[in-house]
């Protein structure tokens, strides 16, 4: 398990080190990041080669009080996903190192990419549902940062936001589902949950939990009707698309379905709903893929469609179906990762990725085109590539799904074959566009095959896709079998992957799919005009986002008037109303006296000084006098703290007062002109509100002081501060040790507030 922990920590360590020690545009950043990714891959590989240890978990307590632990689980399923993540990771990292232009902010890019890799490994290795959620959201955030990497582009920002809104919302729904599962079953540890599925099945929370977890899975994997975010996420740099949006992140939803399958699949709706969503996504999105003119758009829809296929297989929770899904997942990672990288290469060289503008690729970039065609054919399911075997397995399983779904599956396979042929042959032809390509490339150098550094990555992936076809059993057999064992526990599947299955209905279906696909491609695709249809869901999303923005703006404008007295009025009114409501609804205890000594003379003097200072602030003739008077009231308060035996509070108060006075003086010049008190009308309403709030606060304090029901926690702190924390200053021990988590939250808020202030002032449009 040590290797797994190392594999998980390496990317995070790499991200931190890169940030600390690298120049923003350092050319070496990519290679350093690749080293970390490679080391992580080696660690995963050694864990996989070492076999699955028993028990396959490592438990690190995180917050035991919340049942949250950083426990790791390395069974077959985790290892299969982790191998895909780290192996494709290495290829993508090295590709990106050669791909990014020298002027790009490479440090930032590779930092995010490493962060993503670590988060993704965290998702598949987490054995605690809550930890899984944390890593899950971390992948959403790093994906947001990576899609928006070219943040000067409006479309990038739009795509990044959309991906984040949809996946993070889904993630929150999933968290709700997890909480339901965890509370019903009494544990958040996945291995323990497996034995308690019947508890969940018997509970009324089963159905909502199923729906919420499905929401998380299908938003992450961009399944219908949430497929809208993936195409717009294609604004990301191509290595990101290859890594996050083809090979790994979008598969997190699939992982979730496979991982929770043993618990969730006996529950109603899980299998049927996911199967229908998967098949529907596969058919609809492969149709949409055919209508794209942008190569990356085509690949995006094809990814969604392929994910639908895998989703429908994994949802069934039968060993044969799971094997089909998981083997296709391996194939898909290989060929789709390669296809994205190749499209990146094409865009890099030809400066366009529009199908209609590209020239005759076969002549201009023969090597690139050969790899592209091989990848596309593997996706189409052409023997002897790996895709053929998994497509066969899929069709065989789909024939069990009932006539309607089986027909839809075959239709999906036909459409898939059609766009794959279009990708393999249509793009390279430079058909009907000699004029366009001539204008596009005139003046510029004709595109040509790139340097080896950009080709070996995709070449390697395509080779793997080919080898998966030729030697499936020896390369992937054990891996898939191990994963199936984890996804469908207790199954006895004798998996034998081979290219030739003999004549069977499946082979016929495959042949029909390929043949009809080719006809569709040659008769329809070649003559159609790509129209890049705008999705209905896209319109709904845009409409909602626009409404949300205008509504929140309207609400905000209604109270953010810029007038301090209005803010104070709102705050005090709400406070008074809320507390009065509590008093009206609940019985009010009697005000009780508490034992107190009579105040000393100097205490009274200090209090009177404070009051005088406050009054002085109100009636000051100049602003400077008002500020200083306000400061004086603060300092007398500090004095009061000191007198009452709270030296820490007194020190803090003095510091805060000093800095506030300095701040006031600093912004002095920018404040609106000062109106002397006699020109300001006394508003009776404000006076009444102030008096009510002030007297109410006094009353509350007196009431609370006389009604102490529980024993004071102070005793505990006094007794234990030196014993448990080693320090005698209780205040500081509370701050940094006993209630350190609160402090961590507070300093985070402090940091965010300062950054917001900095950004709001420094980056605001300059007012003339």
């Amino acid at each position, binding site marked *: 398990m040590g290797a797994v*922990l190392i594999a998980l*920590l390496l990317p995070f360590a790499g991200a*931190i080190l890169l940030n600390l020690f690298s120049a923003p545009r350092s050319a070496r950043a990519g290679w350093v990041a690749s080293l970390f990714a490679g080391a992580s891959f080696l660690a995963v590989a050694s864990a996989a080669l070492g076999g699955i240890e028993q028990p396959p978990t490592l438990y*690190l*307590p*995180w*917050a*035991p*009080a919340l049942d949250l632990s*950083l426990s790791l689980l390395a069974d077959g399923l985790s290892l299969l996903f982790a191998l895909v993540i780290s192996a494709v990771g290495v290829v993508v990292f090295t590709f990106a190192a050669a791909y990014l232009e020298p002027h790009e902010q490479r440090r930032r890019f590779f930092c995010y990419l490493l962060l993503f890799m670590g988060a993704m490994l965290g998702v598949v290795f987490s054995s605690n549902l809550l930890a899984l959620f944390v890593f899950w959201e971390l992948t959403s955030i790093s994906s947001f940062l990576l899609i928006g990497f070219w943040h000067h582009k409006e479309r990038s920002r739009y795509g990044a936001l959309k991906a984040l809104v949809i996946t993070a919302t889904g993630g929150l729904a999933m968290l709700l589902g997890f909480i339901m599962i965890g509370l019903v079953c009494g544990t958040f540890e996945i291995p323990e949950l497996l034995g308690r599925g019947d508890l969940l099945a018997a509970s009324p929370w089963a159905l909502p939990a199923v729906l919420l977890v499905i929401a998380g899975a299908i938003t992450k994997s961009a399944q219908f009707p949430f497929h809208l975010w993936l195409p717009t996420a294609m604004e990301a740099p191509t290595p990101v698309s290859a890594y996050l949006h083809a090979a790994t992140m979008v598969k997190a939803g699939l992982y979730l379905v496979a991982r929770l399958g043993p618990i969730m699949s006996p529950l109603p709706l899980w299998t049927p709903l996911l199967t229908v969503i998967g098949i529907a996504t596969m058919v609809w999105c492969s149709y949409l893929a055919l209508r794209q003119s942008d190569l990356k758009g085509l690949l995006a829809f094809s990814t969604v469609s392929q994910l639908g296929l895998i989703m429908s297989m994994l949802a069934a929770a039968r060993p044969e179906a799971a094997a089909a899904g998981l083997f296709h997942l391996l194939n898909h990672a290989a060929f789709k990762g390669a296809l994205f990288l190749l499209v990146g290469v094409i865009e890099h060289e030809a400066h366009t990725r529009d199908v209609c503008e590209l020239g005759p690729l076969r002549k201009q970039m023969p090597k690139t085109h050969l790899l592209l065609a091989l990848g596309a054919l593997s996706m189409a399911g052409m023997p002897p590539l790996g895709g053929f075997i998994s497509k066969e397995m899929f069709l065989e399983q789909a024939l069990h799904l009932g006539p309607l779904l089986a027909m839809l599956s075959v239709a999906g396979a036909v459409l898939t074959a059609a766009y794959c042929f279009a990708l393999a042959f249509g793009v390279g032809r430079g058909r009907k566009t000699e004029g366009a390509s001539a204008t596009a490339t005139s003046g510029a150098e004709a595109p040509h095959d790139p340097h080896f550094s950009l080709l070996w990555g995709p070449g390697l992936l395509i080779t793997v896709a080919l080898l998966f076809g030729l030697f499936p059993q020896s390369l992937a057999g054990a891996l898939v079998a191990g994963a199936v064992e984890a996804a469908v526990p207790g199954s006895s599947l004798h998996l034998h992957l081979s290219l030739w299955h003999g004549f069977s209905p499946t082979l016929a279906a495959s042949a029909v799919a390929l043949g009809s696909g080719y006809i569709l491609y040659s008769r329809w695709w070649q003559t159609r005009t790509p129209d890049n249809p705008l999705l209905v869901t896209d319109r709904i999303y845009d409409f909602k986002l626009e409404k949300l923005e205008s509504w929140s703006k309207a609400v905000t404008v209604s109270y953010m008037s810029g007038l301090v007295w209005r803010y104070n009025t709102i705050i005090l009114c709400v406070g008074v109303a809320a507390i009065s409501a509590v008093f009206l609804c609940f019985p009010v205890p009697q005000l009780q006296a508490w034992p107190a000594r009579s105040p000393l003379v100097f205490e009274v003097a200090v209090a009177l000084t404070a009051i005088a200072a406050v009054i002085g602030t109100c009636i000051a003739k100049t602003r400077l006098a008002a500020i200083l008077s306000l400061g004086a009231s603060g300092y007398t308060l500090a004095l009061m703290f000191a007198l009452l035996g709270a*030296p*820490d509070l007194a*020190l*803090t108060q003095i*510091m*805060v007062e*000093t*800095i506030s006075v*300095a*701040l006031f*003086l*600093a*912004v002095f010049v*920018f404040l609106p002109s000062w109106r002397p008190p006699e020109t300001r009308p006394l508003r009776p309403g404000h006076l009444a509100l102030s008096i009510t709030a002030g007297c109410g606060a006094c009353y509350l304090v007196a009431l609370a002081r006389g009604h102490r029901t529980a024993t004071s926690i102070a005793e505990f702190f006094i007794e234990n501060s030196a014993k448990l*924390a*080693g*320090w*005698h*200053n209780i*205040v*500081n*021990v509370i*701050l*940094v*040790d006993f209630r*350190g*988590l609160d*402090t*961590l939250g507070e*300093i*985070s808020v*402090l*940091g965010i*507030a*300062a*950054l917001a*202030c*900095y950004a709001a*002032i*420094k980056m605001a449009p300059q007012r003339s």
Partner: protein
Amino acid sequence: MYSLILAVAVRYTYPLLLLFAAFLFLKGHNSPGGGFIAGLLTAAAIVLSYIASKRSPGDGPDRFFVNLIGFGLCVALTTAAVPVFLGYPFFTHTFGFVDVPLLGKVELASASLFDLGVYMVVVGNVVTVIRAMTGQ
């Protein structure tokens, strides 16, 4: 509003203030003080040096204090997170005593590191806000 008297006074009091902040920070274990107060004092000292000097606070190394916030958060978070990997719950602190020549028995506590993080965030926060508001 440049005052020669203030400028000269600050030249000598500034190091003293920082020293006092360090004193408060270290003293905080057993008597009033600690990262938060020391941070505020340091920030006040820096603000004072801005007031006394001729240049506007907006000048000078731009990102230093902004970065200090992030760095402080990292220090605090790391201190809190390291125990997890040693098999203890998040935020488990520890302490021990070492003998240092001349000083005698000195207490070392992991909570001090967390306190250092708090200190950096507080300094970064206050100075960032003041600089942003005054440097136009």
